[in-house]
C-alpha cells in the first residue's frame, strides 16, 4: 500500500461565537486509502470536513496537501487544488441535466458556445466508467439518490481529485446500491485517490476502510488501523467514558409503577422506524441508546406527533390518545426538547421570557393570555431554578450560550406542566459544566415525579440516570435493559451485536 500522506491536518482549531468546534485536531490521509472519519453528532466531523474543503477557514493549525500548505477560501479553491466533496444531501442541481451537472462551469465550447453534443457524449462516456449507462440529457432529479451520488463522485474525480470526501454517502441507499458504491470506491482507491469516508454504519467501516479516525467532543480520540480495532473498542471510543464521575448507576428510586404513564404499542413509520413498544412510569427515566441514525430521534418524533405514525397506538395516563400533531401531544401533557436546538428549538429573535412561556401559552389556548406579570414571574423563577446565566429575561435567546439555550428550552416545557418530557440529545454541543448541570436536573425532575424519555449518544450519561434503557439499531429496537443490566458494556454489546 502506498503510504505517502496526500492530505495532512495538524492542530486544527475552529472557534464559533458560541462553541469551540475543533480543539487541535490532527488528521492524516494517505494516497490510495479509504479512511473513515467517525464521531457522533456534534463531535466535529462536519466542521473538520468544512475546514478541509474551504467552506470554513481554520482559526489555527496547518493543512498540507502533498506536503504543501494550502489555504482554501471556498470550495472552488479546494476543488481546484484537488479536494472534492460529495455530501449526503447531494450538492448538485436537480433542475439541470446530468451532463450539465458534471460539466457545470467547465463545459467544452466551440466558437464560444457550449458544445452540447460533446458535453453529452463525454458525460455518457465518463459515467460508463462508473457502471452507469443512463440518459445524461434528463434532469438530475429524474434519478435516484444513489445514482445522483455516483454522478457527484464522477464530477469530483473528473475535476482532478487527489482527495475525495464522501460525507454520509450511504445514508439513503439500499444494500445493492451500497455495494456498487463500494466497488467504485475501491476502484478509485486503486487509482491512488485518497478517500475520506464519513458514515455512521459501522459494518460499512469494516467493509471498506483501511484506517479510522475518531472524533469526540471536538477532540481527536485517535487514529486506528481497521484491522486491529475491535467493534466494541470502536464503539467505546465513539461514545466515550469521560463522564466517569457520573458513571455510577443511580436512577431515581421513587418510581411507583402500577400502570405505565405512557404506553406505546407498536409505533412505527414506513422507512423510518419498525414498530416499537415503550413503557414509561411516573418518576422514571427511560434511556434511548443507539448510534446516529439508529432510530432514536425518529422514535421521539413519532411519539410527539412531529411525524405522522403509520402504525401503533399510544396510551397516556390510562387514556388512548390520538397523537396526530405536536399540539395533541402537548394537550395530553407531553413535551419534547428537539435534538437540533438551533433549527427546531429556539426562536432566536424572541426573548428568553417569550421562549419560556410559549409552550404553556399554546397549551392554554390563544385567548387565555398569560399576563406580562405572570410571564415575568415564570421566567425569573426558571432563570433562578435552572441557574441560567443571563442578566436579563428580555435578552434575545440567540445571544445565550448553547447550554443556557438548552436550559431555556427545558424551562419552556417545565412551565407547561407536562407529566412526561422527551429529551432528544439534551447535552449535545454544550460545554462540560452545563452538561453536568443538565444531568443533575434530569435527576431532580424525576424526583419531583416527572417521567422522562431521554435519547442520548452518551452511554455514561444514560447509565447514570436511566431506570430502563431501550437500545435501537438499524431503525428498530434490539434490546431493553433493566436496572442491574444497565452498564456501558451491555449497551455496547447490544449496539454492536449482529
Amino acid at each position, binding site marked *: 500500500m502506498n503510504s505517502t500522506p496526500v492530505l495532512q491536518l495538524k492542530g486544527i482549531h475552529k472557534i464559533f461565537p458560541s462553541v469551540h468546534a475543533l480543539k487541535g485536531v490532527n488528521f492524516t490521509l494517505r494516497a490510495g486509502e479509504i479512511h473513515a472519519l467517525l464521531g457522533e453528532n456534534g463531535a466535529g466531523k462536519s466542521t473538520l470536513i468544512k475546514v478541509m474543503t474551504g467552506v470554513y477557514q481554520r482559526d489555527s493549525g496547518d493543512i498540507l496537501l502533498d506536503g504543501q500548505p494550502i489555504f482554501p477560501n471556498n470550495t472552488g479553491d479546494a476543488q481546484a487544488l484537488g479536494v472534492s466533496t460529495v455530501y449526503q444531501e447531494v450538492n448538485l442541481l436537480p433542475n439541470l441535466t446530468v451532463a450539465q451537472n458534471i460539466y457545470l462551469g467547465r463545459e467544452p465550447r466551440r466558437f464560444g458556445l457550449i458544445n452540447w453534443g460533446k458535453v453529452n457524449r463525454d458525460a455518457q462516456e465518463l459515467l460508463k466508467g462508473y457502471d452507469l449507462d443512463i440518459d445524461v440529457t434528463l434532469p438530475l432529479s429524474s434519478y435516484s439518490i444513489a445514482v445522483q451520488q455516483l454522478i457527484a463522485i464522477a464530477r469530483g474525480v473528473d475535476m482532478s481529485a487527489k482527495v475525495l470526501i464522501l460525507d454520509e454517502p450511504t445514508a439513503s441507499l439500499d444494500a445493492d446500491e451500497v455495494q456498487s458504491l463500494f466497488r467504485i470506491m475501491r476502484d478509485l482507491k486503486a487509482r491512488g485517490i485518497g478517500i475520506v469516508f464519513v458514515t455512521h454504519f459501522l459494518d460499512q467501516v469494516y467493509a471498506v476502510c483501511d484506517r479510522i479516525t475518531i472524533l469526540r467532543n471536538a477532540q481527536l480520540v485517535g487514529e486506528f488501523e481497521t484491522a486491529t480495532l475491535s467493534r466494541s473498542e470502536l464503539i467505546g471510543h465513539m461514545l466515550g467514558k469521560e463522564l466517569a464521575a457520573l458513571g455510577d448507576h443511580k436512577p431515581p428510586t421513587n418510581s411507583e409503577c402500577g400502570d405505565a404513564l405512557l404506553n406505546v404499542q407498536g409505533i412505527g413509520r414506513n422507512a423510518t422506524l419498525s414498530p416499537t413498544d415503550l413503557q414509561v412510569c411516573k418518576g422514571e427515566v427511560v434511556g434511548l441508546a443507539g448510534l446516529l441514525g439508529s432510530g432514536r430521534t425518529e422514535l421521539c418524533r413519532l411519539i*410527539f406527533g412531529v411525524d405522522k405514525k403509520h402504525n401503533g397506538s399510544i396510551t397516556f395516563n390510562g387514556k388512548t390518545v390520538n397523537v396526530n400533531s405536536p399540539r395533541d401531544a402537548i394537550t395530553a401533557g407531553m413535551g419534547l426538547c428537539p435534538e437540533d436546538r438551533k433549527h427546531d428549538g429556539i*426562536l432566536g*429573535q424572541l426573548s428568553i421570557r*417569550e421562549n419560556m412561556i410559549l409552550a404553556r*401559552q399554546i397549551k392554554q389556548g390563544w*385567548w387565555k393570555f398569560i399576563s406580562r406579570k405572570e410571564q415575568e414571574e415564570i421566567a425569573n423563577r426558571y432563570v433562578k431554578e435552572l441557574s441560567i446565566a443571563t*442578566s*436579563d*429575561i428580555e*435578552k434575545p435567546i440567540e445571544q445565550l450560550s448553547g447550554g443556557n439555550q438548552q436550559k431555556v428550552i427545558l424551562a419552556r416545557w417545565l412551565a407547561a406542566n407536562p407529566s412526561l418530557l422527551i429529551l432528544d440529545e439534551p447535552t449535545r454541543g454544550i460545554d462540560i459544566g452545563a452538561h453536568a448541570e443538565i444531568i443533575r436536573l434530569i435527576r431532580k425532575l424525576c424526583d419531583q415525579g416527572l417521567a422522562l424519555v431521554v435519547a442520548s449518544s452518551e452511554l455514561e450519561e444514560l447509565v447514570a440516570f436511566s431506570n430502563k434503557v431501550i437500545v435501537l439499531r438499524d431503525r428498530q429496537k434490539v434490546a431493553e435493559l433493566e436496572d442491574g443490566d444497565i452498564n456501558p458494556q451491555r449497551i455496547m454489546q447490544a449496539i454492536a451485536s449482529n
Partner: protein
Amino acid sequence: MNTLSKNQNLRRYLWPCAGLLVLLVINVIIAPEFFHIEFKDGRFYGSLIDVLNRAAPVALLAIGMSLVIATAGVDLSVGSIMAIAGAVSAYYITKGVDNLALIIGAGLIAGLIAGIVNGFLVGYMSIQPIVATLILMVAGRGIAQLVNEGQIVTFDHSGFAFLGTGSFLGLPFPVVLVIITFAIVQLLTRRTALGLYIEAVGANPSASHYMGLNAKAIKMSVYCVAALCAALAGMIAAADIRGSDANNAGLWLELDAILAVVIGGASLMGGRFSIFLAIIGALIIQTLTVTIILSGIPPKFNLLIKASAIIVVLLLQSPLFQKQLAQLKFRKATSVTNTAKEAKNA
C-alpha cells in the same frame, strides 16, 4: 436588572421616533406655522392634522402589513383590495342601498374574501407570498373595474362620505378609524397570544411546528386582517372623493405600506413586529412629503428623496453595512490615535 432590556426596547423605538421628530423639527424651522392648530366648526385644522389625515390610508395598510411581514410574508395586493372594496361599496350605494352598516359590511366582506384567497394560496398551498399576492394585485384592479363597469362611479351618500370627510371629537374621521383599528388589532395581538404566535411562526417555522403552532391558520388570519384593513382604507379613499376610481384607488399604496413597516424597523425576514412603529413609519412617509413641499423643493423631487430614504433605511438595517460603518469609525479612531502617537513621538 431590566436596564438592558429597556435599552434594547428603547433602541427599537428610538430610531423611527427620532426620525419623525427630526422631520417635525425641520418642518417647524422652515415653516413656523406648521404646528399651528385651529379649532373651527367643531374640528381642528392645521398642517399637523393634514399630515395625520393624509397618512391614514397608508397607516391602515401598514397595520395589516406589519402582521403579514412578521410571518415572513408580504402582501402586494392591498392596493387592489382597496379598489375592490371602494367599488363594491359604491356599487351598493348606487343600487339604492341606504343602510350604512350594509354598505360598509359589503366592502369589508369583499376585502375578507380577497384575504381568504391570499391566505389560502400562501398558507395552504405554500406559494411564495410575493407570487401569491401578485395574482390578486393584477386581477384585483380588473375585478374592481368590472364592478364599476369601467366608469368612475360617483355617489352621494352623506353617511358613507362621513368615513372620509367627517370628524369626531374634532379629529378627521379617517384618523379616528386608524386609532380604532390600531386599538382593536393591538388588543387582539397583545392582549391575547396571537401576536406571540405570529412572531414565533415568523422567527422559526420549524420550532413553531415542534410546539404545535398551526402556521397555516396563523398565515390565513394575518392575510385576512391585512385585507380587512385594506378594505377599510379603500372605503375611506372612496368616501373622500365621493366616488370609486378602480384605476387609481390605492395605486402603489402597497409599496408605501411595505416601506412604512420597514421604516418602522421590522425585518422582511419575519419575526418581531410593532404596529405602533408601522404607523410611525406611515407618518414619517407623509411628513417627509410635507417637508419637501415646505422646504420649497419642487414636489417632483418627492419620489427621488423617498427612494433615497428607503435605500438608506435598508442599508442601515443590513448587518454587513453596520459592520462596514463600524470599521470606518474604527479606522478613523485608530488613525487619529496613530497621528496623535506620531505627534507625541515627534
